């Protein structure tokens, strides 16, 4: 009788709730309730249950992702937290990389560290790079630090000592002493939160974990209780940044792993669509009001990374935020969305974003006082949006306000007419996104020409067709339900947990038994988390090592086949590394030793395999009735485009570009170079027109 699964994604503005039953998906959007975030979930649950005709008792599983941890870090609304670190290294998180993230700004302001200096305490102790104890901490000095923590009235403490990823003994001793004296204290150890070399990243990650832990623990317990009171006693699982789900208890212990859970859900959503369509290489493209996110998905698995940055303070610039080293789906985020504002700079160049009009005042066409042109204003003037039928007719757009903003800010400065100015803005923002995708692909040794793009998010379908033209991508899929993509992605995520550790090892000094032991230990750690959530389910382990030539500073990840993980040998590692290096940089370097720095094991339950989508059915002779004028950027002119409502485009039906396919949430623009076909699962597929 328990047939339904509920998923909930708490975002900055909306909380998306999706219920999946045997009959399909029902979804709703509720405004996020900041004072008690679970309230929006409960309200959403009531709505979707009523619409699906099920009761909360029939929900068998709840999957949840949230930006609450991220927001707490950005807005500095975490617990009263202290750091205990190695004497002589009190300022690691404030000294950062000792560099400026913007070379030409004399008035640069560095971001504030998560903890001020007087909440950072030191202990006289030292372990060296080989794990050997140089200075053992004395019981008296440990007690003195405990007394300082007590005096400060801290709720949560992060412990980060140098080289604890090699030897965690001192961190563990510190925790034991803290908990013996202060049993209610919440403690996070760097050797557990992020056992990786590089103290700035590790300490910062551990502090971030400590900072949000009391709040997230409380919130998650509350959520579970309130759901039960509302009749839903189902277990709650959490989406993590690595693209899998973990138990509520695991999430409460390592809440920093929840930081990118929403976007991770989006990538999983795209991976699932890719699997259904048999697309091996996919570029997922998610464009909303403020930012666009791009992710590479190969073999239906999103690419992952070991470190990312949150809370960037300076135009999304690399280095202006704080690094978090946890397993994470690797995404490029740039300040390009429907609300991104345009201006003309001193070189007469059009610039778009990262500044956004937000929802208040919004783009000029919202008629709420915005006077600067946003991407949405350009889209409106290029005929891509219907002024009288925006967001399901929720409110009318004002083209004259768009035209005034475009003429005033861009057209006048560059001698362009309104359409020319709109074209310029649209082309610049598309170019920014295309450049980000190109750089990301090149960094990963990928050529996008064989890729399929999967586009979702409110603004993506308006721009995805042009992006495909720019990137030489032949196939574009726009799945249904793109407005709640992340929440749908949660439903498709496997249980998973990735364990990583830095243990430097040169291949010339390779020690097979030690490597086998290390990988087995990481496997046990990772599978432990997964088996707790999914008793009885098969758990697969994926092995990965990060290697480089000795002397380089940049490692490349190499997937290890099971046979090599179980019977490791140096030649096998060397061959894999050299092949991957050559793929990325088109050469290898002779005569140099190779070293492994980081080891990772990802334990996961099998991914749900979607049914393959049937080949398109034969067309039924339907053709769209209406047309309107739309600008085609590749042709640099206005064209007469067919217009259809998305529901009209039932599976098998085709529409040739130029065309506009609209629905309440968004509008798909089909460029003159493409045709759109509706596939059996409701995805709209854009492909290159057959050569005439």
């Amino acid at each position, binding site marked *: 009788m328990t047939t339904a699964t509920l998923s909930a994604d708490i975002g900055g503005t909306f909380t998306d709730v999706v219920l999946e039953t045997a009959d399909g998906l029902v979804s709703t959007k509720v405004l996020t309730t900041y004072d008690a975030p679970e309230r929006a979930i409960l309200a959403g649950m009531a709505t979707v249950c009523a619409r699906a005709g099920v009761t909360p008792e029939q929900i068998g599983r709840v999957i949840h992702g949230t930006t609450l941890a991220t927001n707490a870090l950005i807005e500095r609304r975490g617990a009263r937290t202290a750091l205990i670190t190695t004497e*002589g290294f009190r*300022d690691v998180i404030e000294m950062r990389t000792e560099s400026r993230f913007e070379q030409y700004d004399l008035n640069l302001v560095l971001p504030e560290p998560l903890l001020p200096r*007087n909440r950072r305490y030191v202990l006289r102790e030292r372990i060296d790079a080989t794990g050997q104890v140089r200075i053992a901490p004395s019981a008296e000095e440990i007690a003195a630090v405990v007394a300082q923590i007590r005096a400060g009235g801290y709720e949560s403490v992060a412990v980060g000592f140098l080289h604890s990823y090699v030897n965690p003994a001192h961190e563990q001793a510190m925790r034991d002493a803290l908990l013996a004296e202060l049993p209610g204290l919440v403690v996070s150890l760097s050797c557990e939160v992020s056992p990786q070399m590089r103290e700035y990243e590790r300490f910062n990650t551990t502090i971030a974990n400590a900072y949000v832990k009391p709040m997230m623990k409380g919130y998650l317990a509350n959520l579970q209780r309130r759901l039960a009171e509302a009749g839903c006693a189902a277990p709650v699982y959490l989406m993590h940044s690595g693209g899998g789900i973990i138990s509520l208890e695991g999430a409460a212990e390592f809440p920093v792993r929840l930081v990118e859970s929403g976007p991770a859900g989006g990538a999983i959503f795209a991976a699932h669509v890719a699997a259904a369509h048999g697309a091996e290489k996919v570029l997922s493209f998610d464009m909303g009001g403020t930012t666009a996110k791009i992710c590479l998905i190969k073999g239906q698995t999103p690419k992952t990374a070991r470190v990312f940055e949150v809370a960037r303070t300076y135009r999304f610039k690399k280095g202006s935020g704080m690094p978090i080293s946890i397993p994470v789906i690797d995404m490029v985020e740039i300040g390009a969305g429907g609300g991104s504002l345009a201006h003309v700079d001193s070189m007469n160049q059009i610039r778009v974003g990262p500044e956004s009009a937000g929802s208040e005042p919004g783009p000029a066409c919202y008629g709420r006082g915005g006077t600067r042109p946003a991407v949405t204003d350009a889209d409106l003037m290029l005929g891509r949006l219907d002024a009288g039928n925006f967001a399901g007719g929720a409110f009318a757009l004002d083209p004259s306000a768009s035209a005034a903003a475009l003429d005033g800010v861009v057209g006048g400065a560059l001698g362009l007419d309104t359409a020319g100015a709109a074209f310029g803005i649209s082309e610049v923002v598309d170019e920014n996104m295309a450049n980000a995708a190109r750089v990301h692909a090149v960094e990963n040794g990928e050529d996008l020409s064989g890729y399929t793009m999967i586009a979702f998010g409110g603004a993506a379908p308006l721009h995805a067709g042009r992006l495909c033209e720019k990137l030489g991508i032949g196939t574009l899929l726009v799945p249904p339900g793109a407005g709640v993509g992340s929440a749908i992605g949660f439903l498709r995520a496997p249980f998973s947990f990735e364990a990583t550790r830095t243990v430097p090892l040169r291949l010339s000094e390779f020690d097979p038994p030690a490597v086998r032991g290390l990988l087995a230990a990481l496997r046990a750690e990772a599978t432990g988390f997964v088996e707790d959530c999914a008793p009885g389910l098969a758990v697969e382990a994926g092995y990965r090592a990060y290697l480089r030539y000795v002397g380089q500073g940049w490692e490349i990840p190499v997937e290890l086949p099971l046979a090599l993980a179980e019977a490791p040998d140096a030649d096998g590692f060397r061959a894999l590394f050299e092949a991957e290096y050559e793929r990325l940089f088109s050469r290898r370097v002779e005569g140099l030793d190779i070293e492994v720095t980081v080891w990772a094991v990802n334990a996961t339950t099998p991914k749900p395999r979607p049914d393959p989508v049937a080949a398109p059915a034969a067309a039924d002779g339907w053709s769209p009735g209406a047309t309107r004028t739309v600008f085609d950027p590749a042709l640099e002119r206005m064209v007469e485009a067919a217009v259809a409502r998305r529901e009209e485009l039932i599976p098998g039906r085709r529409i040739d570009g130029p065309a506009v396919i609209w629905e309440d949430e968004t509008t798909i623009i089909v460029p003159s170079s493409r045709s759109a076909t509706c596939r059996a699962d409701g995805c709209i597929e854009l492909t290159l027109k057959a050569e005439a």
Partner: protein
Amino acid sequence: MSEAKLSTVALQVGWNRLISVVEEQAQALVRTAFSTSVREAGDLSAGVYDPEARMLAQAVTGTPGHVNAMAEAVAHFVTDIGPENIFEGDIYITNDPWKGTGHLHDITVVTPSFRAGRLVGFFACTAHVTDIGGRGFTADANSVYEEGLFIPIMKFAERGEIDRAFVHLLRANVREPDQLVGDVHALATCNDIGHRRLMDMMDEFGMDGLGQLSDFILGNSRRATLARIAELPKGSAEGAMRLDGYDHPIDLKVRLTVGEEDVLCDFAGTSGLDSHGINVPLIYTKAYACYAIKCAIAPDIPNNAASLAPFRIAAEENSIVHALHPAPVAMRHIVGHTIPDTVYDALEKLLPGRLPAPGSGALCNFQLSLRPASEAARRDGARRAEVLCFNSGGSGARPGLDGMNTTAFPSGVMTMPVEASEQAGPVIIWRKEFRPDSGGPGCQRGGLGQHMTVGARDGHVYDMSVMLDRIDHPAPGRAGGGDGAPTQIGLEDGGTLRGKGRQPIPEGVRVVMAFAGGAGHGAAAERDPAAVRRDLALGYISAEAARDVYGLDEAEIGRVLALAAAGDLPGS
């Protein structure tokens, strides 16, 4: 063949794309280079040029030291190779300090870009390599001949054929031949990536040459730069800065003149050559002077031939900022990094209240050359290793903003993680943290420098090549602000060390350093008392400084310190 005309929007997009091409070119280098200074410090650059050798775009990287060097490099190559000798498949190379970027450790590679058999442009890139032979990375040499292998502008490859004799010679003259050859190939690959992306772009836009795009970029850049110069008050002002030097103090002098369409920096009156390798070829002086002016008046205008042209630099031959061959130049950054503060000393007089006070200046770098302390130690696993560390002192206070703590200016380098340095060689860094009271007092306080203590693991001894200045000449305060704290270096056991040069360290002894703070801006008495209380609570200043320099009374100091000890901040 005439070029198809590009629309205004296509030109806009094309400029964006060229900048993306060079950024990508630079990224490829960062990820493949062996040199610590490239990968950790961003000591590299990449650029794209039209067939007339005019630079159209340059990647923004960690070092301003290549700004003009890159802009002028390709013209040198075209002259020396000869236009008639430029063929498809060629790769050119040099490390000429006077035609490249100021010292032998920087290798520049230039690749001509051909399309349908016609030269359409050039790609160039530069990276700091680990070793170039000679004495190593130190200021101790007395001429450039001692500083390593000198590669004049020449062909590394002709029509796709690599010059094996050259590679053979190169390998025989450096300490890490595999790494160096790896780096040269990385440079060549990085230009290839740029070329391929340019061809994609020209296909997409239907371009057969860069002419129209080049005119668009250079025309708009020139117009924008001239507009900024037009906003400046016309006139002339002098600036100066004194440094420790290697064995005698150095005076940097500049006269800055703002004209109708140009800004001239004339370094007449600056000290003559030093006998050791801290002399600066003019190209490097130009880079830092231009960088300083651009930050002050045109930070948003990208570097290219036109945006740099209005900034003119002059200096007397064989002054320390215009060293001629064969002066030793390996550590030209020690003096070069102080040029922006010298230029600002002059520009401040024309644009009062807009510029930062002087900071710690040059990076606080040192290199440890470790070896086994004995044969027995070697048998126990002790090994040879070189460990290079980049660190920063404090930057100068800005009008309205405090200086940045332990943050480099003008260099943009990153420090290495302590754990990574300790994995790289048998060193132990015992201390690396803020140096309280080192920021120059002022209405805006200078940025803090740092304490750093280093030693070797058991069984090792080491020599230390030190590259520190501002020991005798701290960053001077501006507009009534106080000086930053001077640099200090010595042995833990009380022994002394010099600020520059390679010095043996007795076995088992640690080196104790304190890096300089930035200067203050405005009178300390005018500092917001809330900011003083906060500095005290955070331990940026001591109780003594709070009382003696900023005039906080004892009761207030006691209250603030009690709050801080309980984990709170005053006013929070």
